[in-house]
């Protein structure tokens, strides 16, 4: 009936992007501050090209931003986007806690011997 808000698809893409170990390591590194592709590639046994590809994926799902600064193209995290991911999980948790409260109340309201 209703269509999914775009943010749903975006979140799926972001979660999918984070299933990769290298991309998670890039995220962890960027949490300490801006870094160029060269700086990001240093700790890995990977080419700049490979790192750029990972950055491209992280950029497309909105987790990472890249700006132009002369010859440099430093990357940084999009904190709001990260917060959205965490917010989604917390929201699910709140919803289920509330649902289980409802379940507990419902069970207490049932006659003892007959479940119906």
């Amino acid at each position, binding site marked *: *009936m209703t269509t999914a808000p775009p943010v749903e698809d975006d979140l*799926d893409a972001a*979660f999918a992007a984070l*299933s990769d170990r290298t991309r998670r390591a890039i995220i962890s590194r960027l949490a300490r501050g801006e870094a160029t592709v060269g700086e990001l590639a240093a700790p890995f046994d990977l080419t700049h090209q490979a790192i750029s590809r990972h950055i491209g994926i992280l950029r497309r799902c909105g987790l990472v931003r890249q700006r132009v600064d002369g010859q440099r193209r430093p990357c940084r*995290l*999009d904190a709001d986007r*990260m917060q959205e991911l965490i917010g989604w999980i917390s929201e699910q948790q709140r919803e289920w806690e509330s*649902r289980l409260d409802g379940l507990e109340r*419902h*069970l207490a309201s049932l006659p003892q011997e007959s479940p119906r």
Partner: protein
Amino acid sequence: MTGRVTLDGDQLIATRHLDAEPALVWEVFTSPAHLAAFWGGDHATVPPESVAVDLRVGGVFELETVGADGSRHPLRFRYEVVEAPTRLVLVEPRTGLLTEIRLRPTGDGTTVVVHQRRLPPELQTEQARAGLAGILDRLELVVTENRFHEHC
């Protein structure tokens, strides 16, 4: 009881001890009238006539929630696993969100454990290894740290 695929590494969403035996909790989780009574929790109501349950693997579970502001949200799930009275796995085809509900007898009652996974199927194997919970812990840390470094 053993040898099943578990969803280790998925996000633990909730766990609760209930003062009712698993058979009853199972019935409440799988009967339209019961589901309508509790699924909305504190935040929504569920019109009983909106609930449909086809309790078999591949069967559909659908319902509509009505929020405090009157907004209606149709929800549609497909049963992936139906193992009475211990395990129910639902997938929401629209989002790929997988929800596992496990019921374990404990003492006089039942412990309900809810896990979720939100990833495309092709990533599930790797995901099982990496652990979404771990990623999210890290993300939480990242965001906390990031608040000090960034200004966006």
